[in-house]
Each structure stands twice: as structure tokens, then as C-alpha cells.
């Protein structure tokens, strides 16, 4: 239960991090470490070089300009949960950030780390898919932007190249409107057994499920039936196509339940 030896590099800028990452091909980035360090303690992960991003200046800033949120990747879950701009203009993101792990985990774990780790049961990747966010990936080759919906490729698998760092996240504040969130976990702080972000517009509905597939599962539908039984039947039929990694029948049922809960939350708020 002790990590294998590694060399440690502390960087002060994104540029330094990108240089180090291109120089040391076996390096791993250390953000908050709340997923990586457990893996290293178990020696499931044995990087020979760790590049610590925690010292990058102003790597946790949030700004909102002309409807565009820009969040730098080093923000902790707790800061995201408490940030006044996020609370006011993207409340669903603040809410779900508060459901990530426990307080002590949220004080260290970062948004960028969670998004790049791509755990299928975690809230934030699905939130970004629901928000149709853009991720800025930085390397010595320059920057490129990829949508969250294209970024996730499968179980713990993303479009991030070996020399790239997820440095910024952009999304429209207006897209956070009308998205509502619900999840079911056995205890507070546990990974969700199933969760959903539901966006209800007059003529269309979007659902993003997590915890019930190998990665965030997003789909767009026509308007939902207002009548409860018909709507729940629709959620159940949609959920029946999900392929959870385990407890298939149970998690599909929960998927329909969380979708309905998120929908009802939205209807209450918008009423």
C-alpha cells in the first residue's frame, strides 16, 4: 500500500507542464491525485515521473463573459461547488460538484483531473456532456479544442493525447439553464449507482446518463410526454438499451428513476 518510487516534477506554468510532458514520455500528470494516488498506493499505476500541476498559478480561475464560462482545470470540486458565479449562472454544475466524493476529497480533487480520468460513474464528465462543453487541450504542439461529447471514447478512455493537458473548459451559461440533475448513491459521497442530467425545452429533451454505461450516455429526444405514466414508460424503454458494467437490471431501473426525478425537479423549478 505504498507507491512505487518515482521522480517528481513541480511546475509553475502550463507551458512548463507541457514541456515536461513531452520530454518524459512515461510521465503522469498529478492534479488533485484523489483517483491517481489510490491507484499508486495499490501499485495499479506505477508512473516513473509525476508532473505536479498543483503549483500552477491561477489554475483555478472562473470567469463569465458574454454568456461564456471559462473555468481553468485546476479548480477543486469544493471551490466549484461554492463559487458564486457558478452558483448563480450554472447552478446544476455547482450542485453536482457538491456530490463528488466527500468534503475532504472535494477539497483536493480537481475538475480537470476528474474530466481526464473519465470514470464512467462520476458526475462531472456527464455534466460537461450535458452542457455541451468544450475542452481546451494544451501540448507543446499548441492548443486544440474538442467537445466533451467527442472527448469521451469509452471506459476511462478519452481523446487526450499522451502529450496533452486539459487546461480549460468553456460552455455557455445559457446552456446550463433548464438542465437538472438527480442521482442515486448508497451513501453520500459514494459513486452514484445511476445519475442523470435532463434538459427540457419546449420542443426537445436531452438526457445524459452516468454510471450506467462505459462513459456518459447522451441522447436527444422530442418533447417528453406530460402524462406521468407515458413519460415513465418512455424513460424505462430508453433505459432498457443501456449497457451498465454490472447489476444490469437494477441499474437500468435506477436510470429511469433518476431521469424522472431530474425531470420533475426541472418542472418544479420552471413552474
Amino acid at each position: 500500500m505504498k507507491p512505487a518510487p518515482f521522480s517528481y516534477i513541480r511546475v509553475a506554468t502550463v507551458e512548463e507542464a507541457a514541456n515536461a510532458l513531452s520530454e518524459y514520455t512515461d510521465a503522469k500528470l498529478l492534479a488533485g491525485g484523489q483517483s491517481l494516488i489510490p491507484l499508486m498506493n495499490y501499485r495499479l499505476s506505477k508512473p516513473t515521473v509525476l508532473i505536479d500541476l498543483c503549483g500552477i498559478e491561477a489554475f483555478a480561475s472562473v470567469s463569465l463573459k458574454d454568456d461564456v464560462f471559462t473555468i481553468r482545470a485546476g479548480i477543486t470540486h469544493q471551490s466549484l461547488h461554492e463559487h458564486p458565479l457558478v452558483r448563480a449562472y450554472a447552478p446544476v454544475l455547482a450542485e453536482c460538484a457538491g456530490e463528488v466524493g466527500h468534503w475532504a476529497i472535494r477539497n483536493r480533487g480537481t475538475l480537470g483531473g476528474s474530466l481526464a480520468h473519465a470514470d464512467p460513474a462520476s458526475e462531472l464528465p456527464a455534466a460537461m456532456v450535458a452542457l455541451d462543453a468544450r475542452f481546451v487541450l494544451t501540448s507543446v504542439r499548441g492548443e486544440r479544442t474538442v467537445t466533451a461529447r467527442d472527448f469521451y471514447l469509452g471506459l476511462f478512455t478519452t481523446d487526450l493525447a499522451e502529450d496533452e493537458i486539459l487546461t480549460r473548459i468553456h460552455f455557455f451559461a445559457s446552456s446550463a439553464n433548464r438542465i437538472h440533475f438527480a442521482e442515486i448513491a448508497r451513501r453520500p459521497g459514494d459513486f452514484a449507482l445511476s445519475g442523470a442530467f435532463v434538459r427540457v425545452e419546449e420542443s426537445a429533451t436531452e438526457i445524459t446518463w452516468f454510471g450506467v454505461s462505459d462513459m456518459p450516455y447522451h441522447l436527444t429526444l422530442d418533447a417528453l410526454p406530460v402524462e406521468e405514466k407515458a413519460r415513465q414508460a418512455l424513460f424505462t424503454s430508453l433505459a432498457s438499451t443501456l449497457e451498465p458494467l454490472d447489476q444490469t437490471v437494477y441499474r437500468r431501473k435506477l436510470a429511469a428513476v433518476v431521469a424522472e426525478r431530474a425531470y420533475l425537479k426541472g418542472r418544479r423549478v420552471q413552474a
Partner: protein
Amino acid sequence: MKTIQATQSITLNINGQTHSLDVEPRFLLSDVLRHKLGLTGTHVGCEHGVCGACTVLVDGKPERSCLVFAIQAEGSSVETIEGLSADGMTRLQRAFQEHHALQCGFCTPAFLLTATALLKQTKDPTEQDIREAISGNICRCTGYQFIVDAILAAAKGEEA
């Protein structure tokens, strides 16, 4: 950019005292506190962030000392249970005693630190706030109710 290989000299601020020591980068903060500094009040349970027994305060906020490398704590101020009780028991500790909020005591230092941080930021927490704050700490003896009672009592300033 600073590359560190093998053993490195670092300076840590623990409970207001400065310690200079040599560590390998792979040394966890929890292990350095216990084995290098003899601060064995920080307990190590699961070593993967689930049990919460190793919780310490880093710049006033609860964090898992088993999920932080000691070398990362340079420049931060770390508070352990030994720092909390340097001048006798705090009101919170007396409340734990009065309300029987511990039995074996293994989880207690981490509960005290987590609750100390909570009471610093929330003067008048509800039972719900308390349960949410301590949800990351596992206790196998008490069933939690007495811990919640103790924290509520300490928040209200009730003296035993």
C-alpha cells in the same frame, strides 16, 4: 521547473512548527507525519481515501493525508490532532467525552479535525450539515448519533 529524484529535503509547517526533513517523493503525508515526525495521532486505515481516518487540516481544510504526498504539502500549513489539543482539550473534545462520541477511538482524531473545520466555517450547523460534513469519516463503534450530538452541543457552546 524543479525535478526531484531520490531523497529530497523539504520543509513542512505542522501545527505551527517548521520541520526540515528528507523524504522520497513517494512518501505519503500520513506516513511522514507518523514515521518521520512521530505524530501518531493521525491514523491510517484504508490508505486509499475511503475510511477518512487519516484526515488532517491543510490550510484549514480537511484533506486525506494518505492521498497527498508529503512533498506536496510544502508551503501549506498542516494541522494534526496533536496541534488541536496542544493547550488541553477543546470544547469539541470535551463534548465528545461528555456525549460518549467514541468507543475504540481509532477514527476520533479525524472526526475532531473534520468537525473543527466545519465549526470554523459554519457557526450554527444543522444536523444535516454535520452529517454531510462527517460523511467522509467512517466510525465502526458509535453508530454516529453520539458524534452528531457532540458536534451539535459544541456548536451551541454547551459545556459539560
